[in-house]
């Protein structure tokens, strides 16, 4: 499983999140690899998120290549920065795209701030 599949599959097992409680809407991801396009549909509803490989229209459509989305799904690339450099495009309700930042993992090797302070001696 690549990071993209892992990321979407894991969303289905995510505990209901009160921080997503107000959001309703659907986001379609179109991820190109070579000539293929994989589609994923994210459904936000009352705090829970589901992700399926459904091919249908949504409130918001995100397009990029699968290789780059692997980096986002692994926490290595930032979704908003990707939008600014046109590495990824978004159409429709852009506010739904903002919530992607709450779903993707933190950057690999990121430090819990308290560990960072305690670990000064080792740096």
């Amino acid at each position: 499983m690549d990071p993209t599949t892992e990321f979407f599959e894991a969303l289905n097992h995510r505990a209901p999140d009160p921080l997503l409680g107000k959001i309703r809407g659907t986001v379609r991801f179109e991820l190109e690899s070579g000539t293929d396009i994989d589609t994923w549909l994210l459904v936000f509803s009352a705090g829970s998120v589901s992700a399926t490989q459904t091919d249908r229209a949504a409130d918001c459509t995100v397009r990029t290549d699968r290789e780059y989305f692997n980096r986002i799904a692994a926490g290595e690339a930032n979704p908003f920065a990707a939008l600014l450099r046109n590495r990824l495009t978004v159409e429709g309700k852009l506010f739904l795209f903002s919530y992607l930042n709450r779903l993707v993992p933190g950057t690999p090797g990121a430090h819990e701030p308290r560990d960072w302070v305690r670990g000064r001696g080792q740096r």
Partner: protein
Amino acid sequence: MNDLVSILDGNTFMLSDSTGDVEPSPNYPSGLFAWDTRFLSRWVLTINGERLHELSIDDLQYFECRFFLVPGEPTHYVDAKTSVIRQRSLAGAFEEELTVLNHRDEPVVLTLRMEIDSDFADVFDARESRSLPGRTAKLVEPGRLRLCHERHRHVAETIVTSSEPAEIDADGLTFRIELGAHGRWSTTLRAIGTIQGAGGRDVRENLRGYQEAWPEKRRELREWLDQAPKLTCDSETLDDAYQRSLVDLAALQYIGLTSQVKLMATGLPWYMTLFGRHSLVTGFQTLPFIPQIARSALWVLALLQGGRVDDFRDEEPGKIMHEIRYGEPGGFGDSPYTTYYGAADCTPLFVVLLDEYERWTGDAETVRLLEYEARSALAWIDTYGNLMDDGYVWYERRSPSGLENQGWKDSWNSVTYADGRLPGNPRATCELQGYAYDAKVRGARLARTFWNDPAYADRLEQEAADLRDRFNRDFWIADQGYYALALDAEGGQVDALASNMGHLLWSGIVDDSRAEQVAEVLLDRHLFSGWGIRTLARDQAFYNPVGYHTGAIWPSDNSLIALGLRRYGFAEQAARLAVAMVEASGYFGGRMPEAFAGYDRRRTKYPVQYPRACSPHCSSAGTTLVLLRTLLGLRPHQDHLTIDPAIPERLGRIELVGIPGRWGRTDAFGRGRVHLEPE
């Protein structure tokens, strides 16, 4: 930046010299900017090869202005045969109408030329004329000049067109015009900046109101002014500052890329984007006047609340954002400021504003809808913010390009010992503890009244009380009689005397027995210049009257201190500070800059400009509104507004009609009765 002329519309602005021309300058970012990117770096008008000289400038609205110009250099006797009117406006696109008037009694043939270029620089690189990575091209196309910059898939373009036919070359547009005796000729130039997104279209295309025509803007501005309370007062200076502030607050609104609510750009020219801190403070300042500013700030900052741990962005779950930047360097990961979270004050201030917002507006629904964002913010204070596990809020950057200081004074030398040494990391500045205390007290009220969680409310109240006790023990410097600026990592007191202490009164963390001493120190000559309270006292090692956070005077800082003085019952001291700030605003045409110099009033007689200060600046515009609130003693109490004026004699009468709130609309009146000695 005295001789510069700016027009603005949200996060878009055009900054030129006094003739309307733009040329690269090492001192300020001149040109047309939108979304942190420069779209025009050269815009120079000539007639028959000659530059123009200004006769006068009309500042029409914040988004339009007009220059009256004549060819040639100024002499004591101007006998122009030709004059030019440049009228420019910003409404999504930049438009400039050029009108040429022939004053001769005979026909004339003239060559009019506009030199045009763009370097697509980021606002902070704009002064250095540093070349960007990527490719730049100037394309002459039928009827238009297209300037573009490409870096991988990132494409920014400026397209310039004219309503009259022009000869177009890669460096500009030329018009050969024939004018009859006393004839007139005109054309409208239009420059559009785009950043490509989906389907090659402008990434901002689906933003509501992005390309609004200016008649619409005029109508919106009228409505904005109509909704604000009406001020009638004896002081012309105060009235000017109030009107100017309302217009500037309207001018700085823009619609975000992903948020669809109005955000507040912070300050022209450096900070024409959302800053968490200034949006929260401006929201607080403007509640008695325009409560939708606070409402928008809360919603957008909730949407952008940190969701994960990211060292590069100093981001943690629950943390409220420091700033957002739209420029190219951020997109390519050259800078963390695209979405940067290195601020330790924004998170508690978010909870403070949410509570204050409800107290004024009675909008319980927002408090219920933002419950979990507010709870995450409160949780951040006790976890990620509590770096040393001692219950204080500390900061230390993890991002190599992040900010060394993460309170409102975020420059590198703003936190020092009195003798000028710099403390190590992490640091816990005093005002952060005040904000955390206030957030807990207010969070407890929200939990009890709106979230149906009395157990959580009890816990927050207990923590707040403990924090207050510990703070008054650990930060008070007994032999000096003031609070330490910060604690260092060893728990030692960072003992510089600074304005931060004034915020402690605003937050209510100061022990009642010490409040009078604190108020005295704040208004003593070392901190108080006669125009306002300096960021750092003049007897401290690092003091510099033109030091950004080490001696300059910040209106927004003073506004929170004025509120703090009133909170502890020092009405006369608050009135003294308020009248000094009102008088200072008179020297800035009613538009208080981000900061001004800390020279003593007795020495300079007028407030000296801080060289690179932003103006307009959102929380300086908000300051005027706080001064009115302070002078009239406005406070929401249950379902009504209490009014307790403390107005200096020399300000005379103040009437504020139509103050919005949970009571509907109400009025406040006050008369100058407080006797103060001249400064």
